[in-house]
């Protein structure tokens, strides 16, 4: 059972690879959270039934002996194209079927598995009705480069054997036997890998600092508390390639001589917890975690620590104190986590995506990694593309890809209106937009370029907004989030966000004045200068950035009492179009506050001072005569 040496690992890899390659065909059913919600597990079960009914050899796990008659059936991680789920990929052809239903299963087996035919109605068609059979040809995928997400959607997410078959854990072997700790750190430093969790701090420097600590007890902590609303990259990696996460952490442990690790996963990700636990158990069974890994004498044990619903635990010191069983409140720094982290010991704390980038860097070298993205911003970045965009989903692109490429080439363009802005970096980030003064569409998405315009990559949520989105309302939404998630420790964040939310609510509800805007700016200033932790310091960013680019929208709310995007209900008025009104009196009868008057068969009028904007008249009118203005 256990793999005791590096040679045994190589032998196993060959054995598993032979077995995997022998499968005549493979059906990879997406079992990410999105597709599971769409019913992909039922599809999996149905597929299994049909394959067996047909008398085919169905291999749910890698068989010991290669068997060229078997059909591999597996639950994979997220393919990324969540909008089109449930997704199903057929290997070795690389076909991708979209929106698969139970009823489609029979036909898929018959045509694509038994024979080599495509089920045309399940393949992707673009707006010009052009079909794309192969996954890699679909525009959504074509511009992507997958490093961190390399195996996500390509292998059975629950199988360590498949991971090993594709070369998994060979980076660990290399780190253990061919490299010194310092060499590993140097490789990471040279690669310019920067933390993917938000700050973009160079991972190599962090590792070096922990390596330099004299303390014997050290920890490796993986931040899987992906709390930014509209972000699910880390979840997909934990669900789809859990061994990649483990391997990255293990290499960090070897590099810094740490023997204990924790993965902190937020409570909203039960499937990620399950997959990670399975993966840890299997890695322990195989001797790839635990004592004397691959006979090297190196020990590393790994635990999962589950969050319990607190966004602030994504902050380093809050996360470590939460693992220790406390309220997740950030503490003052210094001391920094690299010196006094988990259990007050030196700690490497990186996020999931950062760790996922480590194994390929070790295997292929820093030079290879530098081939992606601009200087100082090397590599790729995973984004969760959501909001008013045609193709929502999980993507990975080289750093420096432009916003235009992401939204229009990969995302297929804006849905329901024209492009207005994207919110990037979640509640700590800012927006990129086309406004009166700016056009960010050709902005390169990388740490340094974004910083210049007051936005940040954050963990990688990209929420697209069309011209029907009110930017004041967007700012209010984020402030509501931050205010709810503030831990409450420091005064500027606890009290300041509360007041900013109050002011923004006033503005969206028509009670705003120019003084509101001024006060918002002053508050933002104090909060970002004085808040205790990184989350607090960036809490005002969405407001600062929308004020910067969409100040006229704010002014329209407070001076003209109008919401240009037509979103803020309180700023709308209901009017009856006299040319359409037939005088049926229905609206007057439905109005709960008797704000509508008029005589029968004559156009009616709404008294806006009485109107409570409930919308009953509009809903009830048979002639579409009631308008929101």
């Amino acid at each position: 059972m256990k793999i005791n040496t590096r040679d045994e690992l190589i032998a196993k890899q060959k054995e598993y690879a032979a077995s995997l390659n022998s499968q005549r065909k493979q059906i990879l059913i997406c079992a990410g959270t999105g597709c599971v919600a769409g019913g992909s597990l039922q599809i999996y079960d149905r597929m299994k039934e049909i394959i067996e009914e047909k008398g085919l050899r169905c291999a749910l796990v890698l068989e010991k002996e290669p068997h060229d008659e078997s059909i591999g059936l597996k639950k994979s991680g997220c393919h990324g194209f969540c909008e089109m789920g449930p997704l199903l990929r057929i290997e070795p052809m690389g076909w991708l079927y979209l929106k698969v239903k139970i009823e489609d299963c029979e036909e898929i087996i018959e045509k694509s598995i038994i024979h080599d035919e495509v089920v045309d109605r399940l393949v992707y068609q673009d707006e010009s009705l052009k079909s794309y059979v192969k996954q890699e040809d679909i525009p959504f995928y074509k511009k992507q480069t997958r490093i961190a997400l390399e195996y996500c959607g390509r292998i059975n997410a629950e199988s360590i054997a498949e991971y090993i078959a594709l070369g998994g854990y060979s980076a660990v072997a290399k780190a253990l036997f061919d490299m010194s700790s310092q060499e590993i750190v140097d490789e990471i430093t040279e690669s310019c890998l920067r933390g993917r969790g938000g700050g973009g701090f160079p991972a190599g420097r962090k590792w070096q600092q922990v390596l330099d600590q004299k303390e014997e007890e050290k920890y490796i902590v993986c931040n899987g508390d992906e709390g930014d609303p509209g972000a699910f990259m880390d979840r997909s990696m934990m669900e789809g390639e859990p061994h990649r996460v483990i391997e990255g952490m293990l290499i960090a442990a070897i590099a810094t001589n740490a023997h204990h690790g924790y993965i902190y996963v937020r409570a909203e990700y039960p499937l990620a917890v399950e997959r990670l636990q399975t993966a840890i158990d299997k890695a322990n069974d195989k001797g790839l975690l635990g004592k004397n890994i691959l006979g090297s004498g190196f020990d590393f044990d790994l635990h999962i620590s589950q969050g319990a619903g607190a966004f602030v635990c994504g902050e380093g010191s809050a996360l470590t104190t939460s693992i220790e069983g406390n309220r997740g409140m950030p503490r003052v720094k210094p001391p920094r986590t690299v010196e006094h982290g988990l259990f007050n010991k030196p700690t490497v704390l990186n996020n999931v995506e950062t760790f996922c980038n480590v194994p390929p860097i070790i295997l292929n070298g820093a030079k290879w990694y530098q081939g992606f993205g601009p200087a100082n911003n090397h590599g790729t970045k995973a984004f969760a593309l959501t909001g008013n965009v045609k193709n929502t989903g999980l993507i990975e692109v080289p750093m420096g890809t432009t916003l235009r490429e992401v939204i229009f080439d990969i995302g297929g363009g804006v849905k329901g209106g024209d492009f207005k802005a994207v919110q990037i970096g979640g509640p700590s980030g800012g927006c990129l937009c086309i406004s009166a003064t700016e056009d960010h569409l050709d902005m390169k998405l990388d740490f340094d370029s974004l910083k210049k315009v007051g936005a940040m990559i954050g963990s990688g949520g990209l929420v697209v907004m069309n011209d029907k989105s009110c930017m004041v309302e967007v700012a209010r939404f984020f402030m509501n989030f931050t205010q709810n998630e503030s831990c409450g420790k420091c005064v500027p964040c606890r009290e300041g966000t509360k007041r900013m939310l109050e002011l923004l609510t006033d503005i969206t509800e028509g009670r705003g004045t120019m003084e509101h805007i001024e006060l918002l700016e002053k508050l933002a200033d104090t909060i970002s200068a004085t808040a205790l932790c990184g989350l607090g310091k960036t809490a005002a960013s969405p407001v600062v950035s929308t004020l910067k680019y969409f100040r006229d929208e704010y002014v329209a709310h407070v001076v003209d009492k109008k919401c240009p995007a037509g979103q803020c209900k309180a700023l709308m008025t209901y009017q009856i179009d006299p040319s359409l009104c037939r005088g049926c009196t229905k609206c007057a009868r439905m109005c709960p506050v008797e704000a509508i008057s008029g005589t029968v068969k004559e156009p009616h009028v709404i008294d806006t001072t009485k109107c409570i904007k409930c919308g009953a008249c509009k809903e009830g009118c048979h002639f579409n005569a009631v308008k929101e203005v």
Partner: protein
Amino acid sequence: MSEKYMIIDGIRTAFTDEKNILQVIRKAGIHVPTFCYYTDMSIYGACRMCVVEDERGSVIASCSTPPKHKMVIRTNTSKLHQHRKMILELLLASHCRDCTVCEKNGNCRLQMLAARFHLTKVRFPNTHPEPVIDDSSLSIVRDPSKCILCGDCVRMCNEVQHVGAIDFAHRGANMIVSPAFGRPIAETDCVNCGQCAAVCPTAAITIKKDLKGVWQALYAPNKRVVVQIAPAVRVAIGEEFGIAPGKNTIGKIYTALRMLGFDTVFDTSFSADLTVIEEANELLYKLENGEKKYPLGNSMPLFTSCCPAWVRFVETKYPELLPYVSTCKSPMEMFGAVLKEYYKPADEEAGLETVSVAVMPCVAKKYEAAREEFKRNEVPDVDYVITTKELILMIKELGVQFQEIEPSAPDMPFSINSGAGVIFGVTGGVMEAALRHVADKNNEALREIEYSGVRGLEGTKIAEIELGGNTLRVGIVNGLGNADALIKKLQRGEEKLDFVEVMACPYGCIGGAGQPFGYRSVKQDRAQGMYKADKSAIVKRSCENPTLINLYENGMLKDRAHELLHVHYGK
């Protein structure tokens, strides 16, 4: 190496081992505003008032940034001024602003800083919640609506005292300081030490005041109001009247109390002498018979029992150690019992009722006085306990110019006390007094004790004293967290002691929650004041107090010492 320095507001300021910039700034003579910073507690860094600006214009919290050689900072810039005002404004926006009718009026840090920064307007709507007062405790009153969440009380209760009666609950804008499950504080493990109130910058936790009953007794014609004053009161009360901390004002206190209408005034140091004798005898008994008579033998030491918060701590956290807590009543309760007994015949004759009042540095004494163990026929031996702070209020209300009045002497017959009885008010004092009693009579022995390591304000002290050929190993702790740590050591067998003095409040009774607010240096001065009073006392050892000898030999204690002076807790 040449000395390390920082440039603070243009002034070169040397530093050595200061942990943070804030300490260096204070050294430079600037008091940066803070709500959540105390040298004796961990750095919390939540109020953000102490922010300063570095050379690059970055705003940093001075409480949590270590000083660096040649670092240049400014403590007052337009940016900082604006941020501090904004933070104050934010705090006040959800705070009660009825300062004139607030318990903390004049002593509130929020009020003081608002004045200091000349805050004249709050631009946000007032969202001060309706107060829900928790007055379940006999010692403190909680008004969470006035809480600014600086966390001082939480750290005091948990880090310093290891009591854990209160903690933060909920999150963000809903965060509060609360006992478990929002229960009344009296239904928790609260030991009534009141240290939370002592560090609270606002009126969110205040000490409970019992002045009304005292005034009524003073006004009533048929009441004989007797009062005893605890040792620590005399070195702190003057601070509120412009007298230096540590200056012994006991004579002025007697005068002021008489002006207030108290009929007879006594010094609790007298009964402290009683405690010394009783406790020392108990120690000698335990040393000899402990192995047989105590549940865990002599593996555990005898603990002092003067401090009611400590007694409560044992009851809630270590009930198995209760047999090791001395059965001696506290000096206050000994005096209470003696006084009620003493005046009984005269009262019956004159148709009077004796009301016994105690002026204490302590709020746990209020709780002690109300304990069933200290009531006889449902009447408490001590009727009212008022704190130093409350006595200050009475003196100020009457308009007595405390700093100017002439001192006077206590009343007969309990007018004499030893120096040993006075030093009860400071950590190590009870131990020293007891050791004086068991040691040889010559002064050489006294001096030896003085220098043996029982003195000093450290949280935990261990000392060894030669006693009749044997070595007595004793421990002295102040602060319940230190007591907790020592007990754990004793339980693990890492330490073995014969006798341990515990005072719940940091630095002992001089740092009691009933005392005026004071930083560490103030408490040092108070301690010095106590030892100075001892030095000038004619009688040094409790057993040489002539009044006391008389009481034991011919007076009421002749047969009734055990009944009047001892108590059994937990029954």
